């Protein structure tokens, strides 16, 4: 086994996991909401990017924001339907509704994009970098950079800006925020818009690593659960670190044991965390 190569793989994977999970982290940390359609929204992000390049002839750098706009629209639509349940904080129903959304998104994507796999090629994904016996693509570099930028930006906005203070106030106590004159609905819409944009960005940037299929989304959602739980629900730094750790774990597990069983292995990590520190699940709200 080439240890250096596995570390590189692990870091790239880790940043992918963290980037895919960031929308969920904010959704959960700020709005106390969950979204089981997350994996299908990731799939949609990758396919919209692919279609923008292959069908409309957009350059990759324009296809990515285009995909994010579609992601925001999907987020808005979901929140529109979920609004009553959100204000009631009926998490169990929200879960099932978002699961239904995932089912619908899969059906729509298969109708629009067909059920065959596609390759999402970008100007970066075809350029390789060789350094000694190590290998990676420029797309991998882009993933790491985008993830780092998104995390820093999010952390800054949540802690330093007025917008972040409002979001944290809603997370602490929605009713009090309402009394304080904050339009809680707008915050919920904003959070869902961020979730849609962030997961579409993840799809657009990470999608090129593997062939894309309309049936994908399962693994992404499972890894997101693990990242969010491992990092302490709603914690931004926690998610980042959890993503990296999970990426390294996955890379080495895949190389040493079996690549087919990485998802069950990650799930075992999740169970271990749940059993060992059940208190970690009750992390303070506020997205720190």
């Amino acid at each position, binding site marked *: 086994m080439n240890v250096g190569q596995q570390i590189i793989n692990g870091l790239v994977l880790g940043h992918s996991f963290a980037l895919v999970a960031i929308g969920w982290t904010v959704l959960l940390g700020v709005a106390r909401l969950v979204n089981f359609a997350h994996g299908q929204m990731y799939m949609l992000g990758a396919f919209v990017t692919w279609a923008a390049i292959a069908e409309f002839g957009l350059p990759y750098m324009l296809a990515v924001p285009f995909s994010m706009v579609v992601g925001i629209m999907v987020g808005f639509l979901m929140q529109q339907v979920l609004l009553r349940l959100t204000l009631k904080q009926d998490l169990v129903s929200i879960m099932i*509704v978002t699961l239904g959304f995932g089912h619908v998104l899969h*059906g*729509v994507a298969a109708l629009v994009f067909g059920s065959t796999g596609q390759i999402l090629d970008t100007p970066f994904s075809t350029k390789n970098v060789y350094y000694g016996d190590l290998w990676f693509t420029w797309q991998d570099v882009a993933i790491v950079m985008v993830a780092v930028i998104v995390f820093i930006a999010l952390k800054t906005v949540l802690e330093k800006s007025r917008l972040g203070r409002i979001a944290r106030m809603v997370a602490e106590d929605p009713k009090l925020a309402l009394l304080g004159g904050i339009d809680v609905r707008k915050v919920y819409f904003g959070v869902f818009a961020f979730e849609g944009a962030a997961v579409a960005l993840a799809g657009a940037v990470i999608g090129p690593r593997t062939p894309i299929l309309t049936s994908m989304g399962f693994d992404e959602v499972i890894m997101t659960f693990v990242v969010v*739980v491992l990092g302490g629900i709603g914690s931004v730094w926690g998610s980042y670190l959890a993503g990296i750790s999970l990426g390294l774990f996955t890379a080495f597990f895949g190389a040493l044991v079996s690549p087919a069983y990485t998802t*069950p292995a990650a799930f075992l990590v999740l169970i271990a965390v749940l059993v060992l520190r059940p208190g970690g699940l009750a992390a303070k709200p506020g997205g720190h």
Partner: protein
Amino acid sequence: MNHAVNALVILALVVVGYFLPMAFGGGGAVYSAFVLIAIFAVMSYGLDLIVSDLGEVSLGHPVFFAAGAYATGIISVRLGLGPLPTLAASIGVAMLLAGVVGLITLKLREFVFSLVTYAVTVVGLTLAENWSFLGGSDGLTGIPLFQLDLGFAGYKAVTDKDLWPVAYVLLLAVLWLVSAFRRSTLGKAAMTVHLNPRLATMSGIDPQRTRLMVFLVSAPITASAGWLYAYQRAYISADVLSPYFLILMLTAVVIVGRGLLLAPLIGVALILVQEKFLSFGGYVDRIILGTALILTLAFLPGGIAGAFKAGFRYLRGKAASKSDTIEGGATEWR
């Protein structure tokens, strides 16, 4: 209504139910649809106990369905045993899995519970696709016909028409089991834990033990559907763990109204009639099913039955203007 009349009405319904496929023309497609409705209704009743009685949403029930199907497939193909041993094995494997999942999730509530049970399904799917013991991505083929041999008498099901009596008996048995559960101490304890956990603890009910017990009752019900499904399809692969079955169960449980005995059966019937006889192709059907689930939960929390009730109340309120209804509240989530 007194008990004798009650019993007669139920008996009449049971008899009428058995001849329903004949009333719809009795063709092969009709019998297939009825057999599948019975199987998927049984599958949904397992989940119904968790959702309606315990008040949690298990997303892990496809695993119990698959456990029944795979246990049946493996034992009948590799050991050549008949339906009774495979049923026993299905129930046994499901209870074992339910014990493990139940213990892991004992202290988890609401969305963390659902999250972990969902992870169980995804892991089950990965295992079924990759583990050669379970047939891997090819699945298990050549599951023999449903053939009961009791020594003095035998029964062999070649077509879905022959399988209908079996499916119908299974459905009736499960309906009886669910209604018996709801009258039992355990069923009442589950409802107390669901509606008022503090009262439950004060009444000497152990919530964690109750949860585990309900899991152990619920899983074999869903697994017995997997058992019959294996015989009906004669082939089992990892797609018994696909999201379709999960969405189907969830929709069936909530669409008509939670906590009503016949609701999951009617829910499954509505969905399957659309898919078998009014289909617009797989992907559009998928969109219809998902949309039905979304609309029910987002706009009709009491399901179709709840909407009807609210409609009647509204009309009655209009006629009498003075409303004397103080209902609902806690019953909404039932």
